[in-house]
Structure formats: structure tokens, C-alpha cells
């Protein structure tokens, strides 16, 4: 068909106030027919100036701050900040704390992936697995609540370890909760992952080749779905990830379908890892004392640390000028390239029906972008 209609272009707004938008984020689409000609990401609806606010707070005061950067998975934010502070201040972490951190982060990953599953299947109008996923996520949140006192924000990781040890019988509760969720995996497979319509909807959507993905700075599932086993937990192991044996699930196609499958496999792998970590976990201290937080100064220096959040490579560039507050902190969040660079790229030529589909399969979380 001749593109005769360039005279009247249509700008369609996908978000921020939109049922298909998970998070407060906007995409402005230039549309012809039902095809997207050009997509422009429009972030900033959640910008709070975190990194500026951190410069006004002491090292310890910043812990409640950083976890609020990513509401879906606040724990890797705590982890990365704790890692950076430990690196700058040279603090050692006890062995048991490493294990607890890993278990804690993997639980967070499971809950985050279940949230992603909710978002994705809800986007496809697939209410049933969405409701189940949200329920199962809540079971994991109950574990968090018992351990840390908070459902969503935990502030559990601490420079020098974790805030408290596992309570009595907590191990068993983790195992039984994960078993009850794992028992529903066949249900999920039958209704969702092996559903023909899911395949039809997700296949070929938001397709990226491995070269493209690398050129655009993709990490996490977006990259792993193109066939490479790039995972910071393996590349640069932290916490207790090098203590147990586990695998990085990948797929080859690089489209939404393979990304969602990678997420599913990763969730299962995480659960298995948690079991292994629980078995291998040593007894001992969980916390090395740090100086008085109100007088704590960290020697000048800079550090770039990274960890694998549930969305990809999470980095923190932290600068200290020797004071009691950070001089500069800059988070490298995985959603940043995914939601700004890659999203705009893969939405070109997509159908309107696939906009939300693509966005959620890229696993974009808006507050991570805006900070």
C-alpha cells in the first residue's frame, strides 16, 4: 500500500494513565493504521532526584532511600549499595551472611518474577494465571514479612552483613512455601506457558538479535534470551553465588516469547538454588559491627560495583570524598537501556496491540529509569 496518508499523523499516548502500562511511564507512538512508525519513550514521571537526595543523607540513612528506587525488587538495590559501601569502607562480611544474602536475593527474584508474570499475563488479558501469580508472590512476601517486618521494603541488608539471623523454623517455612508454589508450576505451564495463544501472541514480538542486544546495552533476560549466558552472578560472583552449583537458562530467539520463558526457567532455577544454599548454609555470625552510624566517615575513593538484579545488570558508581555522606551516587539500572534505547528500537513497525506486550517482556520498571 502506498503511504498516502502522511498528511494526518496520529500520536497515540501509551501511558502514564493506561491499563496496559505497568508503572508510571509514557510511550508516545506515532501510528499509521495499526502500525507504530516511531515510538518515543517519555520517562520522568517518577523522578525524585534520588542521587541528589542521597548526597544529603548519611551513609546509613541512605539504606531506606535506595530500596525505594525499584519497588518491585528493592532488595538488589540494598545489596548493591551495601556492596559499594563495603568496598569503599573495606568491610568484611561473615560467611553466613553471604548465604543469607543470596537466599534473600533469590527469594526477591522469585517474587519479582511472579510480579512480572502477573504483569505480562494481565497485559495479554490472561487474568487467570495473573491472579495466581500475584497470590503466589504474596506467599513470598509473607516470608519477607516474617524475616524483616516489611512486606515490600525490607531494609534488611546492611553493610557488614544482614540485620538479623533467620528466625527459628524459618528455613522450613521457606522450603514449604516454595514447594507449594512449585507445585503449581504444571498449572502455569498448562494454562499459560504452553498455551498456543501465548505462543501466537509473543512469538516474534520485540525481536532482537544478539549483536543488536549487545550494541544497545542489553543485559539480563533480554540478552540471555538471545543465547548468551551473561549473568553477573556468574561473571563476577558476589554473596554466595559461587558456593553452589547452578545454571543460567538461555534461549535463542530473542523475542518476547523466549524472554518470558527465560524468566520462567530462571525462577525455577532460583528456587533450586535456594534449596542448595539452604543446605550448604554454615552457622555463625551474620553481622560485622560497623562504627557509630552518625559519626561514620568513609575514606575518599570511588567504586563501581554490580550485581544481577531480576532485570539484569545493576550497577552503582559511588564516590566518597571522605565525608559522612556520599559525594555522588549513580545507579546503572537495567531498565534504563531496556526502557529507553531498546524499547524505542523494537517498537518501530510493531503493531499497537504489541506495545504493552513488548514493554513488559523487556521487563521495564519505570522507577528504575527515573530514579
Amino acid at each position, binding site marked *: *500500500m502506498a503511504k498516502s496518508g502522511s*498528511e*494526518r*499523523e*496520529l500520536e497515540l*499516548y501509551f501511558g502514564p494513565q*493506561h491499563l496496559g502500562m505497568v508503572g508510571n511511564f509514557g510511550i508516545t507512538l506515532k501510528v499509521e*493504521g*495499526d*502500525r507504530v512508525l516511531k515510538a518515543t519513550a517519555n520517562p520522568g514521571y517518577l523522578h525524585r532526584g534520588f542521587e541528589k537526595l542521597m548526597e544529603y543523607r548519611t551513609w546509613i540513612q541512605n539504606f531506606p532511600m535506595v530500596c525505594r528506587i525499584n519497588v518491585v525488587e528493592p532488595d538488589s538495590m540494598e545489596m548493591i549499595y551495601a556492596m559499594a559501601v563495603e568496598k569503599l569502607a573495606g568491610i568484611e562480611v561473615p560467611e553466613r551472611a553471604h548465604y543469607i544474602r543470596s537466599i534473600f536475593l533469590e527469594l526477591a527474584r522469585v517474587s519479582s518474577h511472579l510480579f512480572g508474570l502477573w504483569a505480562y499475563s494481565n497485559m495479554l488479558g490472561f487474568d487467570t494465571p495473573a491472579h495466581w501469580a500475584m497470590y503466589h508472590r504474596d506467599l513470598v512476601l509473607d516470608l519477607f514479612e516474617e524475616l524483616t517486618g516489611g512486606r515490600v521494603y525490607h531494609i534488611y541488608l546492611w553493610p557488614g552483613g544482614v540485620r538479623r539471623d533467620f528466625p527459628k523454623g524459618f528455613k522450613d517455612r521457606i522450603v514449604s512455601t516454595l514447594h507449594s508454589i512449585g507445585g503449581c508450576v504444571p498449572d502455569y505451564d498448562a494454562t499459560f506457558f504452553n498455551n498456543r495463544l501465548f505462543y501466537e501472541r509473543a512469538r516474534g514480538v520485540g525481536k532482537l538479535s544478539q549483536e543488536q542486544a549487545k550494541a544497545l546495552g542489553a543485559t539480563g533476560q533480554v540478552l540471555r534470551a538471545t543465547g548468551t549466558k551473561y549473568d553477573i552472578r556468574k561473571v563476577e560472583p558476589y554473596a554466595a553465588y559461587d558456593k553452589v552449583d547452578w545454571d543460567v537458562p538461555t534461549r535463542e530467539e530473542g523475542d518476547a516469547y523466549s524472554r518470558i520463558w527465560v524468566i520462567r526457567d530462571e525462577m525455577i532455577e532460583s528456587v533450586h538454588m535456594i534449596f542448595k544454599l539452604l543446605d550448604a548454609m554454615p552457622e555463625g555470625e551474620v553481622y560485622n559491627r560497623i562504627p557509630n552510624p552518625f559519626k561514620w566517615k568513609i575514606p575518599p575513593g570511588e567504586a563501581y560495583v554490580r550485581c544481577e538484579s531480576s532485570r539484569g545488570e545493576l550497577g552503582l558508581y559511588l564516590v566518597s570524598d571522605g565525608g559522612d555522606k556520599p559525594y555522588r551516587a549513580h545507579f546503572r539500572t537495567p531498565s534504563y537501556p531496556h526502557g529507553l534505547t531498546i524499547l524505542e528500537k523494537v517498537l518501530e513497525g510493531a503493531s499497537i496491540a504489541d506495545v504493552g506486550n513488548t514493554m513488559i517482556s523487556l521487563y521495564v520498571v519505570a522507577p528504575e529509569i527515573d530514579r
Partner: protein
Amino acid sequence: MSPQAILITAFAGAGLVFLAGKVHSHLRDFLAVLSSLALVGLIAWSHGQYGPDNEIVYVPDFLGMELALRLNPLAWFFAIYIAIINAASVVFSLSYMKGKEKLGFYYSMMLLVNAGMLGIVLSGDFLSFYIFWEIMSWSTYLLISYRRGPALHAGMKYIIMSLVGSCAMLVGILSLYAQFGTLQIAELGEAIAGSSSGYVLFILMAMGIAFGVKFAILPLHTWMPDAHSEAVSPFSAVLSGVLVRMGMYGFLLVMYSIVGLKTILNLGAGFFNFHYILSWLGAITIVIPTFIALLQNDAKKLLAWHGIGQGGYMILGMAFGTSLGVAGGIFHTINHGSYIALLFLVVGAVEYRTGGVRDLNRLGGLIQRMPVAFFGCLVGIMGLIGMPLTNGFVSKWFIYKTLITEGHPFLAFMAFVGTWGTILSVYKLLHNMFLGQLPEKYKEVRKAPISMQIPILFFCFVIFLFGVLPGIPLRAIQGIQDTMGFAPLQLTMWGLASGAGALNMLNICFAIVIAFAVVLLLMRLGAKPRRVPQEDSYAAGSSVPAGKYHHSVEFYNPLYQMISPYLKDRVDQFYYWAADKAQGVFELTRRIYTGYAGTYVLYIISFLALLIFLQLAWEIW
């Protein structure tokens, strides 16, 4: 009133208008409207005056033949239909054509086409039929190419195809004369009854090609979209509303007045039954053009393709030779005339106010600026779709019922699918022109002038009137059918009264009106809405950008992607290819004959030779 008087008025009107154009423009306009309205009056007055009084021989001896005029129910029915639509478009032209050049020529040609068509329906023998047919064809050609430029090409395409048709008709007429020694329609009917079925088929084919070209049956349709989009809008209304339907008149005349019902139904055997083939042609004519129409972005081309598609329904109705079907076919002809003319006039009005824009992607939101045009468009598309309460519904209902009760569900299926294609494409027409966001540049558009509103509202009225009380035209149609020997239908004022398959439009109308009233009452119960400007629209929390918030381009994109590869106009391409090849052949001949033979003459002669050969061959077999 005698047919002679009608024709004299028509031709005299055409001439006078041309002369008046030289004197003063107001006089010209006045005369044009007066003569077209006078014709309506004259014809209306002559209602019921059939019989020997109105059979007039006006040239007693023309090459040994009598040229005669006569008035019968069929002729009267078509005459009034021609005159009314023509009058409406002349009135519409008053403001549409204002300020254009060569207006005297334009008006006189409009009236000449009108006169030609009236001549066709009133002529009592085939020679006058042919003469008037040619007058109509040539004046149409002049009108199509009125705008010059690409219009010339469209006109050329039209006239070439018309010529082929005329030649075919001429062959048929000559053969009839050779066979029976008379061309009087009344005498032919008796004479032909005894001839062989091969001969009847030959006559039907020769005439059928002529009528088929005018009627734009697939595959003889290719002139029509171009001609419509290039012609001026009021003439497009005439062209699609009545001129094309002269083919329908021709078919009715030849098939049922001359050859007769019984012969037609027994023509051919098995699958090669004549009416069977004709009806399949009709079905194809419905489906393919309707879906091609879906792909159009030019408002008039879109309507032109529908003009072709709707012809298929008439053929379907007519081909079966049952009372119900033929009544449906004839009724659909006038219904189609009313709503397609209305739609062309609406497009014309929009074109007039927006400065000649009819690209559907560039319009939008005109409902607030041109409410009457919108109403006309809405009624027109409802008629075209065949929504209940419009006349299009009744005739389509007749046709569907014929198809189902005659046991042809596949034909009915094609007709229904055509309807759905129609719905899709005409909604696009309505939406892209009138709904959605109003572009900045049309903010100042005013509503259509009164001389445009009158014809539009008139047609709207007709559509609803015939839709609710279809008995009015159906009575007249029954009169025609009586002369052709069909079994009478159990007609009532509001539809059809026969057992379980009855149709009662008045009931449905009442039900809809009551339901409307109830729903309006319900609406009054709720809180009263607050009127907001167009810009106060949901845009996911942003404010609406001016001029960029309107969905019209590639309206049915997913379907386009699926069907457009199958819906190229291959027939048109084939003709161009054939013309190209023929050119080569003629080049060759020209070399042999050292350049004396003109392309078209040879084309025509060889075609005639083919037809004569066919006839002889039939005789031999």
C-alpha cells in the same frame, strides 16, 4: 401527456439552456432547473396514461422502418426515476458549479444526457433505442471529460468500452431486423417466441454485452471507477444513480419484455443455465468490487466501486425470474439510485466546502461544521448497507429471500459478504470525513449552501419513506410485472404479507421508534452530561495535541495486509495488456494496408465479424 411532449421538452430544454448560457448566467441556471423540474412534472402527470394513445410513430419511414415512442409502466417507472435524480443533481449543481467555466455547455449536456435516457426508455423500437443510446453515450463522454486533464483519459476509456458495447448492440439489432423484418419492440416479442434457443442466446449475448458495459458487470466494469472519480460530483450522482442503470432497463426490456419469462428460464441446460450464469456473474460483481472499495482512499472512487457492487444485487434479483426477485431487482435499482446519488452529492458538498479535497485521509471532524451533509451521509450509508427502515433493506430482503427460497444459499452468502464489505468501507467513508478530530485548516468551513441541502434532504426523505412504506414503489413495480406476466405478489403498504416469511416494515419502524423513546427516557433518568470541547479527550493523562490525534490513515490495516494482494483490478490490467498487444497487431495491419485502417475501426470491424461468424455458426449447428 404523450411521450413526444416529454422528449421535446427534454431536448428543447437542453438546447435552450445552451443558448441562454450565452445571454446570462442566471437565465441559464433558471432555465436548467425549470426544464428539469418541468420534466418531472410532465412525467408524473402522465402516470397511468398507458395504452395505444401513447404509442406514437414519429418518423414513419426511416430506411423502411418506423421510429416509434410509447409509454408503458416500465418506461414510466424508469422515466420518473431518471427525471427526479437528474433534477436533483441539476439543483445541486447550482452552487457546486458556480464560477466554473463552460457552464452553458455543462448544463445543456446534463439535460442532453437526461433527454437521451428518457428517449431510451420511451422508445418503442430498437432503432430509436439505439439512437438515443448513442446520444446518451456521447454526451456522457463529453461530461466525463469536462474537467480535462486525467478526465480525458477516463473519458476515453469509457467511450471505447461504450463503443464496443454499441457495436455489439448494433449487431444484435441488425440481426433482429434481418431475422424478423421489424424492430418494433411490441412485435418482436411475439416474433421471437418461435425462434431457436441458440438464436435467443446470441441476441441476449450481443445485447448483454452492450448493457453489461453500461451496467458495469464484472468483467466489463473497468471504465467506471475512473469515470466517477474524474466526473464532477453532481454528474457522478446521475452517472451512478441512473445512467449505469440503463443497463438494467435494457436487461429487463430484452429478457422479460421481448424474450419472455418462460424462454429465459429454459435457456441452457444444467449448470449452463442462462439465469444461473447471470446470477453468478452478479454475485461476483457484488463481492470483488465491494472489497476493492475497501482499499480506496478517494471518496468518489470508493463510492464508484460500490456502484458496481450494488449492480450485482440487481442482477441477482433479476436473474431468477421470480416475482419476488424481479421486484427486488427493480426496487433495488431505484433505491440504489436514491442513496448513491445522495452519497455522491454529500461528497460533492464536502468537496465544495473544503476546496476539492476528497482524499479520506485528509478530512475529518466535519460533523460540527456540516451537520446536514453528515446526516445525508449517514442516511446514505444506512441505505447502502441496507439497515432496516431504509429502502435498501427492503429490496435486499426481497433478493435474499428469493435466493434462499430458490435454494441458492451460496449466492446468498456472497451477497451477504458483499454487504459486510460495504459496511466496513462506508463506515470508513463516514468516519474519515465527518468524525474524529477536526483539522485546523477546516476550522472555518461553513455548512453546505441551501441548494445543496435541498437535494440531500430530499433523498434522505425518499430513503426513509420507501423504507417504511415500500408499498408505494412496489405498487408501480407490480404494474410492470403484470405487463411481463409475473405472478402477483401479496403486497401491502408496509411490505409483504405471505405467511411466516412476511415483512412488515411498519411494525419494525414502530418497534424501533418505541425502543428509541424508551432508551431516551432512560437517558433522561440519568445525570445530564456536560458538553465539552473536542480537545477534552482521554490521552493517557496528557493533553491532546492539535491535529495529531485522529485515526484515519490505513483504517483497516490488518485486513489490507491480508486481502490487498488478491484484490488488484486484474481485469483492467488485462485490458491494458490486450490493448497494448492489439496495438501491435494493428501496427502490423497498418503496414500491410499502408496506413489506411484506423485502430478502432479495425477493432470494431473484427469484433463485428466475430459476432456475425458466431451467429452463422449457430445457424449451422
